[in-house]
């Protein structure tokens, strides 16, 4: 294909990309409901040229294990909602700008840690970027060589990679440095990357489907399934296949979180953590789709070339070329180009942020001469520092490509980068869940890990490139046999990536955990550890939860911020802050309080990173050393208040329950009190009646000493009667009190029911006979009962006595029936007296009832008799009721249980 045409199309594509980014940045083309999808697609930057071309190469050579680096991220998806969202939340609150910033912020905003992480990223990722340059250069070569390319000049061939690198460099500068605040969202960038994700998927499908139709369709399925040269594509070849599969899936699992470009798009560019809900299924489906045709294309390549030598990495590109389908080749080339550029753009932006914020700016701030220059033109300086970083990084990548990368396949270089960033796993994972994890541990862990990574993975590549003597891999470093890069400590693990990953992570973890356990944290670290681990408690009150001491006034703070983000914006930000927190706007010469200082530091962190922002503010405030205890106490205090609140609300609900119970008891007491009052009233009333009459008669006798004897006798008789009534009443009241208070003890005796009744009746008989009245007993049972005979006799005496009082003078009749009904002895006492009216039958057992209701018919009762009867029967667990008798008199029914 004509090389000028290719260059033109490539350039056109870059312009298109820029337009997409520009439009997305300036105008809202798509509605907000698409932003979760744009976010999910932008994470698809995970699929680089290594996926686009390299998967097919790896599949052709070693079968299924190309899939392992996609299995890792898919296994991570269930943990997205917990683990990944926590990282996003922390980064939002702390205005984190990169993975280096994140780790340095967690461990007390430490500068050396931030620099170490940045260096690891740069050293680890540069080969990966150069891999993308290599892919672009190679695909260019293949595409231009695939036709009669006489017009292609060697000059262009040689200079092409550097031209591509420089063009991309300018492109990235336009993209990445338009905004000073690195923690701000770059909507344009995200949209452009999402667009690239669509382009590469589309291109892969066009190429893949073309190859399936025009190459694979020429072979029958039996031919494919039974071809011995294809068998290794369908199965793992040995036990070691499983090991490297396992190692690579864990490796890609960690790399997916910690790769600078993934961190940039997944964490820093995340607008809303709700977007994860969409990403969790869109992203895995994307991965599955882009890998769907890998095996068919690899099979087609092997069958098509049939033993001839070819570079399997570029099967997708070379097959359409060989079939002279230039437009398909061009689309595939653009797909690969988009995969490579997407990675280069985001990775370079992320790395340049780290390089400038974590390495260059701290260096500038530590040299007084540079520092003063920096402060005179902050905005411009930062922009230029970023631009220079971008060019520097791209140049490094180019040099690596030129001198080292050419000798390796796509996949092996990518995995080396994965293993480098995996070293951050202990520092981040322990860092967000374990408060004890400290700075020294993180430094040592990453340091040890990356050293082993360098020794086991990078040294062999340098040896192969003849930059180091080969004796190291044969006899070990300095001739020590257990220091061989491919079998460290004499333990050989067949897959060299798994070998390196195992040893580096193991040493990293041991160093990290042991140092965390055996050393103490500084106050800065304690604060940040609290804020990271308990992010949910602090996310809404970050500024308030911070503590520092030191003096600075508002005006100084504002002019500091203004030099970074501009006068107007800083004024606006402060105004918003005071408004949001409902604070009074302070005067310029007033001292700034802690929350304002923290807020300023946070804004500044977004621009130059947490560690640099800390240095600047510290130098400004001449920070006094904050005692460790103060920090811990203050942070704990807020948690204790929360705890106290909870306890208080528990207590108050308990109290309200107790209050309810008390008020019920109170109502009951009041009722009882009222009853008592009524009772007292009635009793005194009843006592007064006989007393009054006794007094009246006594007075008459006193006033008339000459009263004749018969009258005196008559008076005295009345007085004795009244006194008897009085003493009877008092006895009854005492009895009732005894029964009601539960002091009455039953003295149970067992005797036949008949005997119980007969005894009473015999006692009454004489008086009945005297008045020509009859009393009769009918007994139809021979059962015995257990009763307190004295008490029960009083019941009968009372009822029979009452009956007798009301009996008519002629033919008065009382009939007592004793029978057995349903395990009860029932005793009915009937008479032919006037009876008790229906409406009063229920009340006759109430205290003083009779007296209250029917004074007219008073025949001298106290009104307590029947209520005493009822109490006695109740004590026997029996029942008493009143009905109408067969003679329309009263009928009392008493039931006493047999047991």
């Amino acid at each position, binding site marked *: 294909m004509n090389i000028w045409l290719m260059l033109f199309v490539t350039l056109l594509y870059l312009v298109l990309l820029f337009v997409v980014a520009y439009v997305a940045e300036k105008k809202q083309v798509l509605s907000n409901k698409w932003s979760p999808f744009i976010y999910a697609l932008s994470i698809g930057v995970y699929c680089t040229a290594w996926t686009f071309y390299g998967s097919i190469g790896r599949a052709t050579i070693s079968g*299924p294990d190309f*899939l392992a680096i996609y*299995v890792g991220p*898919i*296994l*991570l*998806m*269930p*943990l*997205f*909602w*917990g683990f990944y969202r926590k990282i996003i939340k922390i980064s939002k609150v702390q205005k984190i700008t990169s993975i280096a910033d994140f780790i340095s912020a967690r461990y007390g905003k430490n500068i050396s840690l931030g620099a170490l992480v940045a260096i690891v990223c740069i050293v680890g990722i540069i080969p990966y970027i150069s891999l993308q340059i290599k892919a672009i250069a190679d695909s260019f070569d293949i595409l231009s060589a695939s036709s009669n390319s006489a017009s292609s000049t060697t000059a262009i061939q040689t200079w092409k990679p550097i031209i591509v690198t420089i063009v991309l460099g300018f492109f990235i500068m336009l993209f990445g440095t338009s905004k000073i605040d690195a923690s701000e969202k770059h909507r344009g960038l995200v949209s452009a990357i999402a667009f690239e994700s669509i382009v590469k998927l589309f291109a892969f499908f066009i190429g893949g489907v073309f190859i399936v139709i025009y190459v694979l369709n020429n072979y029958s*399925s039996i031919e494919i*399934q039974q071809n011995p040269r294809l*068998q290794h*594509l*369908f*199965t*793992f070849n040995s*036990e070691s296949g*499983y*090991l490297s*599969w*396992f190692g690579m*899936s864990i490796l890609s699992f960690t790399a997916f979180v910690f790769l600078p470009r993934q961190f940039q798009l997944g964490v820093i560019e995340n607008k809303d953590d709700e977007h*994860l*809900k969409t990403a*969790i*299924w869109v992203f*895995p*489906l994307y991965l*599955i789709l882009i890998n769907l045709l890998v*095996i068919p294309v690899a099979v087609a390549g092997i069958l098509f070339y049939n033993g001839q030598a070819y570079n399997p990495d570029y099967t997708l590109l070379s097959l359409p070329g060989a079939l002279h389908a230039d437009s398909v080749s061009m689309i595939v080339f653009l797909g690969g180009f988009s995969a490579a550029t997407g990675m280069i753009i985001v990775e370079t932006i992320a790395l340049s942020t780290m390089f400038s914020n974590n390495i260059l700016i701290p260096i500038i701030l530590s040299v007084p001469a540079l520092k003063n220059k920096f402060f005179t033109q902050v905005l411009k300086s930062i922009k230029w520092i970023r631009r220079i970083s971008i060019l520097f990084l791209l140049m490094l990548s180019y040099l690596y490509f030129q001198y080292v990368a050419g000798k390796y396949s796509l996949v092996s270089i990518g995995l080396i980068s994965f293993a480098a960033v995996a070293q951050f796993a202990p520092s981040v994972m322990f860092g967000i869940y374990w408060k004890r994890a400290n700075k020294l541990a993180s430094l040592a862990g990453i340091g040890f890990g990356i050293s082993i990574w360098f020794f086991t993975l990078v040294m062999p590549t340098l040896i192969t490139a003849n930059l180091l003597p080969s004796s190291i891999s044969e006899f070990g470093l300095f001739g020590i046999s257990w220091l061989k890069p491919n079998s460290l400590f004499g333990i050989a693990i067949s897959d060299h990536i798994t070998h390196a990953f195992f040893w580096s992570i193991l040493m990293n973890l041991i160093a990290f955990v042991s140092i965390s356990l055996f050393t103490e944290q500084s106050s800065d670290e304690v604060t940040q550890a609290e804020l990271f681990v308990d992010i949910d408690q602090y996310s809404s009150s970050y500024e308030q939860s911070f503590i520092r001491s030191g003096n600075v006034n508002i005006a100084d703070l504002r002019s500091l911020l203004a030099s970074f983000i501009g006068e107007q914006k800083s004024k606006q930000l402060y105004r918003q802050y005071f408004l949001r927190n409902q604070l009074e706007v302070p005067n310029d010469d007033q001292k700034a309080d802690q929350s304002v200082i923290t807020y300023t530091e946070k804004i500044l962190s977004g621009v130059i990173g947490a560690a640099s922002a800390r240095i600047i503010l510290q130098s400004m405030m001449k920070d006094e050393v904050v005692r460790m205890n103060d920090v811990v106490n203050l942070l704990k205090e807020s948690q204790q208040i929360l705890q106290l609140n909870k306890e208080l609300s528990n207590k108050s609900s308990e109290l309200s329950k107790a209050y309810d119970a008390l008020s019920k008891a109170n109502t009951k007491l009041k009722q009882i009190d009222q009853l008592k009052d009524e009772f007292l009233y009635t009793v005194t009333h009843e006592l007064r009646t006989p007393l009054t009459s006794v007094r009246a008669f006594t007075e008459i006798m006193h006033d008339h000493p000459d009263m004749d004897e018969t009258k005196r006798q008559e008076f005295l008789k009345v007085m004795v009667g009244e006194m008897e009534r009085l003493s009877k009443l008092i006895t009854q009241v005492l009895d009732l009190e005894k029964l009601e208070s539960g002091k009455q003890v039953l003295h149970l005796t067992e005797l036949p029911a008949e005997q119980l009744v007969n005894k009473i009746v015999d006692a009454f008989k004489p008086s009945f006979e005297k008045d020509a009245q009859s009393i009769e007993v009918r007994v139809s049972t021979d059962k015995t009962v257990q009763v307190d005979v004295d008490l029960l006799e009083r019941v009968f005496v009372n009822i029979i006595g009452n009956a007798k009082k009301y009996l008519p003078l002629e033919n008065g009749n009382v009939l007592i029936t004793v029978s057995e009904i349903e395990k009860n002895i029932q005793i009915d006492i009937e008479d032919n007296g006037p009876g008790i009216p229906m409406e009063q039958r229920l009340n006759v057992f109430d205290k003083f009832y009779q007296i209250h209701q029917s004074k007219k018919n008073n025949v001298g009762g106290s009104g307590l008799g029947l209520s005493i009867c009822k109490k006695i029967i109740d004590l026997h667990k029996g029942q008493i009721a009143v009905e109408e008798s067969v003679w329309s008199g009263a009928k009392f029914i008493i039931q006493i249980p047999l047991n």
Partner: protein
Amino acid sequence: MKSRLKFQRLAFVCILAAILLNFPMISAFNRSVFVMGLPILYLYVLIVMLFTVALSTAIIIKK
């Protein structure tokens, strides 16, 4: 409390998928057998992946 349960469920799905996609479970499908013309190993991996994604999406979206 409720979100804790959600995390536990998701962690369970992750562990389950990790076990299903590794030795020795995966070795059961490591053979030259074709189902509907597709190698059984890939079919198995694909199904486990889809299952993992579907399950975790369901857990997260469920109120």
